[in-house]
C-alpha cells in the first residue's frame, strides 16, 4: 500500500542531471584532517557506488583509492586536498569528475570578479575578439570584433600557449583550456586596470588599458548544490526573417526567454539559428524541453546508461512549436548539454549542425557537498546518441565542418552563420520546387 512514491525519485533524477564544464577555480583554506578524510571517502565511495561501468574503463578503482589514500596525510590545507582528490579522479580519464573549490555557502555562490565584455576565440596560436558586449568597458575602450590579441598584462599569447604545451592533453582539450583561460583573464578578475596589446586589422599595433566593471550579468539560480552561473541570452532577427538565438548555459532561468522566442518564431520566422558556440552545458532537462519546441513528433535525443538501468532523453512536441529549418552552431567550446542537444537533433534529422567539432565532454552528473566545504561533481551515466554514437571524448561532428581562417576572423566573417543562412535559402528553394 505504501509503495506509491517511486515516480517522484525518477522525476528528481531526470530534472537535476546536469552536464556542464566548470568555469573557474579559486582556492579556500581548511585544515581539518577529519573533514579531509571524510571528503576522501565520500569521493571514492560515490564513484564506486554510482559509476555506470563496473570495470571503470579497465581501471582498478580499488587500487587507485589505495594509492591515493596514504597521500591524504600530506594534504596540509584545502588546496592540497583538492589537488589530491582531483588527481585521483583524473585517473578515470573522464569528464564531469571534478572538485569545485570556488563554492561557498552564501546566497550568491558564484565567484564574481571583473567584467570587460569581451569574448575571445582561440585558433591555432592566435586569439581574436568575436564579441564585444554593448556598453561594456571593452566597447568604451574602442576594441572591435576581429582584433587580434597580442598580450594581456604584457604576457604574450605565445607564452601562454607555451605553458600549455607541456600539459599531456589532446589538442582539442588544450585549445579549450587556453581559450577559457584567456576569456577569464581578459575579464580582469580583481584588478582595476588591464593592459592589453592588440593587432587591429590593417592598423599598427595598439596598447589599450581597460577598466573592468563589476560583473553585473544575471546569475542563474543555484539549485541545491548546483552552483549559479553568469548567464547570457541574445536573440535578433537576421535577413529573411531568420531568428538568431544564443545562450551560454542551459539553465531554468533562461527557459522562459527561449520558449517565448521560439513560440514567437513559430508565427513569424522562416528559420532558427541556435548558436551554442561556447555554451558549456547545464541541466539536461533543458535540452529535452527546448527540443519539444522544435519537433513535430516525440523525438529521441539519446540514451543514458546508468549503473543499473538506463534512461532515454525524449523531446515531446509542445503546443506552440517551430516547424521550419533549424541550424545549430557549435565549436570546440560547446560542451555537455550543448552536445547532447546538437547531436540528438542532428541524428533525428531535425537540425543541421554547423561549425567545429564539439569538446566531447558529455557525461550527465550530479553535485555533492563535501565535508571539506568543496563541491564534488560526479558523472552518473554515459550518454550515447540514439544510434549509439558516444559523445564523450569524440564530440559532435557538424554536418558542415567550418573552421574559421585568420582572415575570416579579422574580417568579422561569421562563417557558420553565413553558411547556415545559405543552407536555409536552399531549403526553401527545394521546398518550393517540391511544391
Amino acid at each position: 500500500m505504501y509503495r506509491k512514491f517511486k515516480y517522484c525519485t525518477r522525476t528528481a533524477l531526470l530534472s537535476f542531471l546536469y552536464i556542464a564544464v566548470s568555469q573557474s577555480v579559486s582556492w579556500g583554506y581548511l585544515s581539518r584532517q577529519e573533514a579531509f578524510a571524510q571528503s576522501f571517502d565520500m569521493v571514492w565511495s560515490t564513484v564506486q557506488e554510482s559509476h555506470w561501468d563496473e570495470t571503470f574503463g579497465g581501471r582498478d578503482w580499488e587500487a587507485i583509492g589505495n594509492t591515493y589514500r596514504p597521500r591524504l596525510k600530506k594534504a596540509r590545507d584545502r588546496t592540497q586536498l583538492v589537488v589530491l582528490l582531483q588527481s585521483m579522479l583524473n585517473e578515470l580519464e573522464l569528464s564531469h569528475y571534478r572538485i569545485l573549490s570556488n563554492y561557498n555557502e552564501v546566497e550568491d555562490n558564484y565567484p564574481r570578479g571583473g567584467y570587460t565584455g569581451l569574448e575571445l576565440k582561440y585558433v591555432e596560436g592566435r586569439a581574436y575578439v568575436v564579441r564585444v558586449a554593448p556598453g561594456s568597458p571593452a566597447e568604451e575602450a574602442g576594441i572591435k570584433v576581429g582584433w587580434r590579441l597580442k598580450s594581456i598584462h604584457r604576457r604574450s599569447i605565445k607564452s601562454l600557449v607555451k605553458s600549455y604545451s607541456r600539459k599531456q592533453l589532446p589538442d582539442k582539450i588544450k585549445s579549450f583550456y587556453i581559450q577559457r583561460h584567456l576569456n577569464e583573464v581578459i575579464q580582469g578578475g580583481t584588478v582595476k586596470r588591464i593592459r592589453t596589446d592588440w593587432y587591429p586589422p590593417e592598423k599598427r599595433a595598439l596598447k589599450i588599458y581597460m577598466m573592468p566593471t563589476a560583473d553585473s550579468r544575471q546569475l542563474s539560480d543555484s539549485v541545491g548544490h548546483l552552483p549559479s552561473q553568469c548567464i547570457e541570452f541574445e536573440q535578433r532577427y537576421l535577413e529573411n526573417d531568420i531568428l538568431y538565438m544564443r545562450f551560454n548555459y542551459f539553465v531554468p532561468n533562461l527557459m522562459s526567454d527561449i520558449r517565448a522566442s521560439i513560440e514567437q518564431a513559430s508565427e513569424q520566422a522562416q528559420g532558427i539559428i541556435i548558436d551554442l558556440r561556447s555554451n558549456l552545458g547545464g541541466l539536461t532537462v533543458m535540452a529535452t524541453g527546448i527540443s519539444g519546441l522544435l519537433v513535430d513528433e516525440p523525438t529521441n535525443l539519446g540514451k543514458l546508461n546508468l549503473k543499473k538501468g538506463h534512461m532515454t532523453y525524449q523531446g515531446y512536441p509542445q503546443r506552440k512549436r517551430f516547424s521550419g529549418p533549424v541550424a545549430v552552431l557549435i565549436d570546440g567550446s560547446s560542451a555537455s548539454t550543448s552536445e547532447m542537444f546538437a547531436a540528438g537533433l542532428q541524428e533525428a534529422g531535425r537540425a543541421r549542425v554547423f561549425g567545429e567539432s564539439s569538446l566531447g565532454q558529455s557525461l550527465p552528473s550530479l553535485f555533492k557537498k563535501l565535508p571539506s566545504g568543496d563541491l564534488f561533481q560526479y558523472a552518473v551515466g554515459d550518454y550515447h546518441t540514439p544510434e549509439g554514437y558516444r559523445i564523450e571524448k569524440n564530440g559532435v561532428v557538424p554536418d558542415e565542418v567550418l573552421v574559421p581562417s585568420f582572415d575570416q576572423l579579422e574580417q568579422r566573417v561569421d562563417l557558420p552563420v553565413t553558411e547556415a543562412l545559405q543552407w536555409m535559402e536552399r531549403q526553401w528553394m527545394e521546398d518550393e520546387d517540391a511544391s
Partner: protein
Amino acid sequence: MEEDEKVEAMLQGYVNSQGGRERLLTITSIEVDGIMKLESQGLRIPMAQKVQAPDKVYTMQDFPVFGEIRNSLNGNQGWEWHPIAGERPLDYTEVDELLDDANLQRDLNLRDEYSSIRLGPPEIIEDIQTTQLIFTDEAGKVEYWYFKSNGDLFQKIHIVSAGPESEFEATERYYDFEEEEGFRFPRKIRYLNPAYEAELTITELVINREIDQCYFVLPIYAEEMARLAKDEPYERSSTTVD
C-alpha cells in the same frame, strides 16, 4: 512448513501489519503530503499525492527554481506537466505502474499480480533480521521484498520505470511506522537509485476523503499529443480541460 505455506504466512503477516484485510478493503482513497529530501544534492522538494481507487493518481512535486511538476492518471491515460520539459503523455509502463499504485487492494491479491512468489534467503539489513520474498511477474521482472519479523515490509528492490523506454533499479526502505485510523504506514521512506539517495517524510496522510476530480483530468492538448505520439487510433478520454 512447506515453502508455499511460509510464503502464504508472510503475505498474510504483511497484510496484518498494515491493519488487516478488513481494514484495507475499506480504503478507497489516500492523500499524502510530504517532503522529499535529496540531502547529498542539497534539495528539499515538497510533494503531494492523491490516489483514488481503482485507477486514479495525481502527484505534485514543487521543485526549487523550476516550480511544480505534476502528473496524473485519469483511469486510462497518464500525463505529465514539467515546467521545463513541457507536457507529455506517460508511456505504457509508467501508466502500468500508476495503475498498480491506484489499486489500493493490491496487497490483498499479490498472488494474482505475480506469476511466482518464492522464499529468498534471510538477510540482515541495518542490523535488522529480515526474511525475503522474491516476486516474478509475467514479463519476467523480478522484485525482492524483505520483511521484518512483525510483518512490516522493510526493503524492496525493484526496477522502476523512468520515462519512455527507461528503467533503473531502485531500493526502497521503510521506517517509522505509525497507525492512522487503523492503517499502519511508514512515515519515512528512503530511496536508493544508481545516482543518489532520497528520503521522503510523510507529513500528513488522509484516508477516504472525497478527492476533487479536477486533479485527474487531462489537458485538451492530450488529444493532439496522443495522436502525435502514436499511429494507432486514439481513445478519447472521458474528461479534458485546458
